[in-house]
């Protein structure tokens, strides 16, 4: 069987599995729909967080970005793991104790205001939509490369592009298990998706590491490959791969890493996963499992990045650009050139290594790695299925946040608080369906690089949710005036800055070609959320201390969420006295 056959095989097998799980895990209550009945086992929740978290950006794009950025790619590796430290020790256990359905629930109750709830719901929807755009795009990229031949006749038949068919199929799958099973369906599908994606990610890394160095452990193999890669880089007149700050200044590496960490901790679709476990203790332990499962992929990614870059540069130095086009050893170039993701038309005799690398789209590195290393077709197909698992699992988690923000927070709590369980569930299902269609449209009409779009979601989450969630738990005095002012300032500052710096990318066809400014205080669009976050903290603080302290029941609530066991009214009374 060739690549097409194997890819079809893996995609059919994994998709059938997801649908099977969907049918098995149908739910009939809102508690089941939003938080999986709060009965998800710790280990399973850890895997679900891992799959929910590791998106098309992590799976498909990240190693490619690291491969092209060298040391500076560490922003993604550290940023997307270090955030779990913040989440695990500052947020997850306390939010689990609070024990509601959504992040806006916490904001609304902690800041005793439906305005705060609505603002949080809007921020959650906004962040999630930004994030989901990248996922559906990832589904499209996988389909156009691996199943292009298969769906091509159908696509031409109805007069659409291959990528559109891919996105529509992806939407149909997510719709099935998200609408039927809600959080429960999503959780158990994500457990399966985690297994698929981690196997698909590590097999090529292990195989390549073994063939290059004789060590089957990628973390060890890099010790041998890196010196050779650095040597090759120098030979070809490139900066050292391991040398810092070749692409980004130290300030930007710092700012972006911080934003990705704080953003991770503030992303509603990740936080809400900790509402699904039974106890505070299991929230702490599922945070541990989550970071363990995530770290497996994130510590292998630098190896994938190095191996693929090494293989590409090695072929280049031996064969030259023109030789690479003809040699059977580098046949992957032709297959990917067909998708338009490598622009071989710009290749010429005697071109520099840098110019060659510039013609290769970053998003293809992971998907092309098995072919670059000439692994067997079943691995190539498995990696494609892994990429789909990563994109679909994240998309479904995001869909649920969008649905719960609208159906639970806006409809259930504000528009129609009298709604029956049945009505709420019906509205939830309807909205998740509409959201999936919206996400699909974003995939068909994409906004830019998968990882770039996703990176902005972090800036927005870091500047909006992170500060007020942390202050809400650790600072009893923090009040609604402060929180609302803080979230509005942080979110609007960050959003406006990103528009100023990046709008020209999306608006090029309308004649906008230059950004209003490139950087703010030397920080670029990806890192600007750091400034937004600091502004949020500062504004929340000063507005709070100049306005009235929150009512006693809110201070009791904060006291309550700090301890795993439910405190009695008497105990809360003592605490209130010792405060004053």
């Amino acid at each position, binding site marked *: 069987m060739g690549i097409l056959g194997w890819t079809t095989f893996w995609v059919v097998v994994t998709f059938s599995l997801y649908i099977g799980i969907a049918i098995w895990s149908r739910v009939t209550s809102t*508690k089941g729909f939003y*938080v999986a009945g*709060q009965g998800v086992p710790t280990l399973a929740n850890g895997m679900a967080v891992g799959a929910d978290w590791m998106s098309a950006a992590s799976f498909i794009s990240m190693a490619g970005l*690291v491969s092209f950025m060298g*040391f500076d*790619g*560490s922003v993604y*590796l*550290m940023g997307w*793991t*270090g955030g*779990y*430290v*913040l989440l*695990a*020790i500052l947020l997850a256990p306390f939010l689990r*104790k*609070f*024990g*509601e*359905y959504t992040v806006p629930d916490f904001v609304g*109750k902690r800041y005793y205001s439906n305005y705060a709830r609505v603002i949080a719901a809007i921020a959650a929807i906004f962040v999630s939509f930004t994030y989901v755009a990248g996922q559906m795009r990832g589904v499209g990229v996988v389909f156009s490369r691996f199943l292009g031949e298969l769906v091509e006749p159908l696509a031409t038949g109805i007069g659409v592009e291959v990528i559109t068919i891919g996105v529509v199929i992806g939407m149909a799958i997510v719709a099935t298990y998200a609408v039927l099973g809600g959080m429960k369906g999503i959780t158990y599908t994500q457990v399966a998706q985690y297994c698929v994606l981690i196997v698909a990610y590590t097999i090529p890394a292990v195989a390549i590491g073994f063939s290059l160095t004789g060590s089957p452990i990628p*973390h060890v193999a*890099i*010790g041998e490959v*890196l*010196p050779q890669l650095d040597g090759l880089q120098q030979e070809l007149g490139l900066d050292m791969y*391991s*040398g*810092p*700050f070749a692409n980004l200044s*130290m300030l930007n*590496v*710092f700012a972006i*890493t*911080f934003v990705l*960490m704080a953003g991770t901790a503030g992303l509603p679709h990740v936080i809400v996963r900790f509402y699904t476990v*039974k*106890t*505070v*203790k299991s929230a*702490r*332990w599922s*945070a*541990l499992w989550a*970071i*363990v499962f995530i*770290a497996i992929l994130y*510590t292998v990614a*630098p190896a994938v990045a190095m191996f693929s870059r090494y293989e590409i540069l090695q072929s280049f130095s031996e064969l030259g650009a023109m030789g690479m086009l003809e040699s059977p050893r580098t046949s992957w170039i032709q297959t990917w050139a067909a998708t338009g993701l490598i622009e071989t038309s710009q290749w010429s005799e005697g071109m520099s290594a840098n110019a060659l690398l510039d013609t290769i789209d970053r998003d293809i590195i992971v998907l092309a790695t098995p072919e670059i290393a000439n692994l067997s077709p079943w691995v190539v197909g498995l990696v494609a299925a892994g990429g789909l698992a990563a994109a679909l699992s994240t998309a479904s988690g995001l869909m649920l946040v969008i649905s719960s923000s609208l159906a639970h927070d806006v409809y259930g709590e504000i528009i129609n608080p009298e709604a029956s369980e049945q009505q709420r569930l019906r509205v939830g299902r309807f909205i998740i369906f509409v959201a999936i269609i919206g996400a699909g449209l974003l995939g068909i009409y994409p906004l830019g690089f998968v990882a770039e779009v996703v990176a902005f979601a972090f800036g927005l989450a870091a500047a909006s949710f992170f500060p007020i969630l942390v202050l809400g738990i*650790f600072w009893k005095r923090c009040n609604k005036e402060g929180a609302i002012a803080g979230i509005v300032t942080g979110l609007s500052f960050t959003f406006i800055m990103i528009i100023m710096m990046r709008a020209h990318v999306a608006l090029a066809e309308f004649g906008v070609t230059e950004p209003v400014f490139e950087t703010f205080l030397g920080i670029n669009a990806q890192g600007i959320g750091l400034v937004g976050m600091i502004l949020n903290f500062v504004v929340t603080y000063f507005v709070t201390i100049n306005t009235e302290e929150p009512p006693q029941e809110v201070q*009791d*609530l904060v006291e*309550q969420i700090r*301890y*795993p*066991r*439910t405190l009695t009214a008497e*105990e809360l009374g003592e*605490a209130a006295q010792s405060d004053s």
Partner: protein
Amino acid sequence: MANNAPEIDRETYWRTLMRRTLILLTVWFITGYVMSIFLAEPLNNIDFGGIPFGFWMAQQGSIFVFVSLVLIYAIATGQLDRQAGVEEDDDSTAAPGAAH
């Protein structure tokens, strides 16, 4: 609970938890930012199994430290819960709405 009196009161529990949280965050900052970013250039002069140390910290070492921090937190806070008698009584902490 309440079978035996807790070893520490709730105020001490919270103060201890805050102190430990600060220590963990300090380690998080030193490994993730100081060693992996601010001092990456000088640390790159140290050879760590073929890999410049600053680079290894940024792409491997810091991640291992992050995992350990979360592990330490889960174990240590569990012990602290028991000492202060604030661990959960049964399998369910709080159904929605029960915490307030």
